[in-house]
């Protein structure tokens, strides 16, 4: 009987194989496809494909007047729509030279920070699933996220696509019990952060999975144009809220959270600790909130902007969200370019992933908190 085993002297000819991940893979957080060249279990190369969620929001904005464009900005970043709206309306306000009333600005700040909380909750939940917590972190995070969304729904009627900010202020006044409701939500959010903190941060299995993985040095992170918590985890204290303040951020006290190693664990920890800062900011905003108008008194119904160009950047949960807007004097932008943090953060994916295991590739992708609607726009 002949043996089916090859003789020991035979030399195997091995080659790298290509594994296609996505676009329907649940751990790619949307429709993102990456082709992994793997040698055994080690990733040798990553080839990302984006564009599955491209809706042409920038081009659509050129055909819409300034109010109509707000709805499309919501959809460019659906996990933190208030932050996306904010950049857009601030760009138009800068073009048209509109002064926003104080009350509207404070409310904008509160809503943006609450949106940052809800977005980071989403990250914590999804990241836990990537690590392998099997949905426990997901349900915890979603429970808290629901509370924040309930508040948003009471104020502006929708849970994700708010369309609430307007050029010059807000669409309508917040509810009468706004302050008590925000305080209530903050209390629940604190409990939720403590839960997730207790579930994940010190867990030895979690740490073994995340520490020392997806490391990116500060210099490389800057070179790739990363921003937000992904950059701060590498030790670069860059926060648009502090470095190029907008709204009333100079009047509130908060710390810019930075990491040291720039690995997956630091990026997780950075976001977790940033949530406490968001709560601090919202509390200070509530103290400063005074009754008053929410739209400027003299506001023309048909808004036209003088010719010019402007670039406004704000700190969205995932990093710098900028809107570059060119006007040629009409009632709609001539060009509306969105600079999204996720696209820039994604550039560093290859640097972070090569040399790690396939199972870690999922983690690294999750750790930059990717939102594909923001990448493709």
């Amino acid at each position: 009987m002949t043996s089916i085993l090859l003789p020991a002297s035979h030399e195997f000819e091995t080659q790298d194989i290509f594994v296609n991940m996505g676009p329907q893979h649940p751990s790619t957080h949307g429709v993102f496809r990456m082709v992994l060249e793997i040698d055994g279990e080690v990733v040798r190369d990553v080839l990302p494909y984006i564009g599955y969620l491209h809706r042409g929001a920038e081009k659509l904005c050129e055909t819409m007047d300034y109010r109509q464009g707000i709805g499309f900005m919501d959809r460019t970043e659906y996990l933190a729509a208030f932050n996306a709206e904010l950049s857009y309306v601030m760009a138009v306000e800068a073009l048209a030279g509109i002064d926003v009333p104080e009350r509207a600005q404070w409310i904008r700040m509160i809503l943006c920070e609450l949106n940052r909380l809800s977005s980071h909750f989403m990250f914590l939940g999804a990241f836990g699933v990537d690590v392998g917590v099997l949905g426990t972190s997901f349900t915890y995070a979603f429970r808290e996220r629901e509370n924040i969304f309930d508040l948003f729904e009471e104020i502006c009627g929708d849970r994700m696509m708010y369309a609430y900010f307007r050029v010059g202020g807000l669409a309508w006044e917040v509810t009468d019990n706004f302050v008590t409701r925000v305080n209530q939500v903050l209390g629940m959010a604190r409990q939720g952060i403590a839960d997730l903190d207790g579930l994940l941060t010190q867990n030895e299995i979690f740490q073994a999975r995340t520490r020392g993985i997806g490391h990116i040095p500060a210099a490389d992170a800057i070179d790739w144009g990363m921003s937000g918590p992904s950059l701060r985890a590498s030790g670069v204290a860059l926060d648009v809220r502090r470095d190029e303040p907008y709204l009333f951020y100079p009047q509130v006290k908060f710390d810019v959270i930075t990491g040291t190693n720039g690995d997956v664990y630091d990026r997780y920890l950075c976001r977790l600790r940033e949530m406490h800062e968001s709560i601090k900011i919202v509390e200070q905003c509530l103290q400063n909130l005074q009754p008053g108008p929410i739209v400027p008194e003299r506001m023309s119904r048909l808004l036209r902007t003088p010719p010019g160009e402007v670039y406004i950047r704000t700190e969205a949960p995932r990093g710098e969200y900028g809107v570059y807007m060119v006007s040629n004097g009409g009632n709609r932008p001539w060009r509306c370019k969105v600079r999204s943090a996720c696209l820039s953060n994604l550039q560093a994916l290859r640097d972070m992933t090569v040399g790690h295991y396939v199972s870690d590739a999922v983690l690294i992708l999750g750790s930059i908190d990717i939102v594909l609607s923001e990448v493709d726009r």
Partner: protein
Amino acid sequence: MRGLIRSFVTTGATFLRKPVTREYPETHRELPERDRAFPLLLWDQQIDEPFCTGCHACERACPVECMTVLMKDNPNHTSQGGTSSRRKIIDKFWIDYGRCMRCNICVEVCNFDAIGMNNTWSGHESSAVDRLDLVMDLQQLLSQSRAGAVKPWIAP
């Protein structure tokens, strides 16, 4: 080991808390007053006709062009011996719910408060098998307000 124990303590504590989930199709959460589902046309109960005059304001302002509006002379106008002060009135109105992105702009631009966002569960549970079933005609848009089933919140 300490971290693992802390994780188990967290899950154990959560296990003892009250559940936050609902048996969805059977029980519904109470929706806030400002909830936005899909736009509806409103019915003037006093004169027994729609508020809408077919002025095309919402149609022009809609970012996704989901509306089609046609107006006609109002047969119930006072000059015709009727009781209404509306010279023109809506003749045909279609809203494609499949296109609508619920941005509330149509409600804001309306000068007659004739259109409002449905703030009941009927607006959220409006799935259809065929895409064409989502194109609502005037009758469908008015029926809920006419029956007094919805009172949309319109920003002051």
